[in-house]
């Protein structure tokens, strides 16, 4: 009896904590990026705010060594690389000139210039300060937060292509899920054939492209870009390149393996697109509507 009495508070504590964890997981699953619960404040936000400078400090000596080595190695073949790049630049300039001529001839250049302002999205440069402490998830911590205008649901890109999506923010830091994460799924299209499919993270350095076989044309070397459907990512951001296409057999769906456009092993600087996709804007608008209706109720009664 005495043993039972001694164990009851421990059992109650364990049951309570387990119940809390399960409820927290369900709530977290249901909240989409862009929901107010994703904006961390109080002690939860403070931990993220502390983590960013601490991780930067820990990584500093390693960064210094790595950069010194990288610069030394890059100097060794700088001359050859320079020659190659000069030749490539000349070829690209020539191609660019020809494309401009063609656009002017078709009268589309002026229309593109007019509509360009609508597509321009402000970009916030940000530094990657740490990665996920668990090897089973692929997320990163960046050193920009709500103070700089970052909100959950905003896409993150690098100069090479799509990096991921902001999933939680604090005052001076933000957490972002990479496209490599097992929970990541992006609507993509093959740039050449416009075949549509889903780009899924596998938790490794590769991605899967799942598409319906009927009417799809997917080949090795094809570039996959965001389709803009789903509303999270803007259309046309480079995601990855097809490296192999599996044998479909009798299945309706086929899978191609992709190599991401971004080298995540060397990722240091990223850009946060300071505008959420259309779906994010709808969620944001509904939050705003909720706020407005609350204000109206407070002022004029139900």
């Amino acid at each position: 009896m005495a043993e039972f009495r001694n164990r009851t508070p421990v059992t109650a504590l364990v049951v309570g904590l387990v119940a809390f964890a399960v409820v927290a997981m369900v709530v977290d699953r249901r909240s989409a990026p862009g929901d107010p619960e994703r904006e961390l404040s109080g002690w939860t936000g403070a931990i993220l705010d502390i983590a960013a400078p601490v991780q930067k400090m820990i990584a500093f000596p390693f960064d210094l060594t790595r950069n010194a080595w990288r610069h030394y190695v890059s100097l060794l073949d700088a001359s050859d690389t320079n020659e190659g790049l000069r030749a490539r630049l000349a070829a690209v300039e020539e191609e660019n000139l020809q494309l401009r001529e063609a656009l002017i001839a078709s009268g589309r250049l002026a229309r593109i210039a007019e509509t360009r302002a609508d597509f321009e999205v402000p970009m916030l440069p940000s530094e990657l300060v740490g990665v996920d402490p668990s090897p089973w998830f692929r997320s990163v911590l960046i050193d920009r937060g709500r103070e700089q205008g970052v909100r959950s649901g905003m896409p993150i890109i690098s100069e090479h292509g799509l990096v991921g999506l902001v999933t939680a923010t604090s005052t001076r830091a933000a957490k972002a899920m990479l496209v490599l994460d097992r929970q990541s799924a992006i609507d993509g299209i093959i740039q050449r054939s416009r075949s549509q499919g889903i780009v899924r993270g596998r938790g490794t350095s590769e991605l899967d492209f799942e598409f319906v076989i009927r009417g799809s044309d997917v080949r090795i070397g094809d570039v996959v870009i965001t389709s803009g459907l789903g509303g999270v990512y803007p259309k046309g951001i480079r995601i990855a390149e097809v490296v192999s296409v599996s044998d479909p057999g009798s299945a309706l769906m086929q899978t191609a393996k992709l190599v991401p456009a971004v080298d995540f092993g060397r990722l240091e600087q990223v850009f946060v697109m300071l505008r959420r996709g259309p779906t994010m804007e709808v969620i944001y608008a509904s939050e705003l509507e909720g706020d407005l209706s609350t204000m109206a109720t407070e002022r004029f009664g139900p």
Partner: protein
Amino acid sequence: MKRVFALLAIGALAPMIQGAVGTFVPLHYCPDLGLLLVVGLGLCWRSTAGGVALSAALGLIADLLSGSLFGQHMLLRIFAFGAARACSQQLNLRGVIPRATFVVALTVVTALGTGALTAFFGAGHGVDGEMLRELIPHALINGAFAPLCVWLVERISNWLSEVDAGHQLLQLRPRNRLT
């Protein structure tokens, strides 16, 4: 109380260190310091209720820094503490090899638990071949680091409990030999 705050601070620092080191080394080749700390608590912490609460808090901090679902690490840390406490009462986990073996097994179980919880509550794949391939080196490295980490947790815990209690160790010095 100092003991709780000190271990909480170490527990908060552990995922931050791992996150920073992970930018240079693949994380499955790094020991899971958070898990090892909780195993250490399970083996040496006197109060079960306090240990459970501390493990849950350490799990919550890991959840905040990780891309996992909120509560996922918390649940697994409570499980890890419970497993360490139960096994230490039933088995002899005093030596280096028993501790390392136990941590290898626990790492496998918690990783499978992570996969299962992500598949059930989240939107991702469950456990797949890729995960199992990464799990083997990760479990072995955790096992290799386990005896050292558990020993450190024990030392810190014992030292801080003396500080908490305000005890002064009685120091016995040999008398000067009479000539």
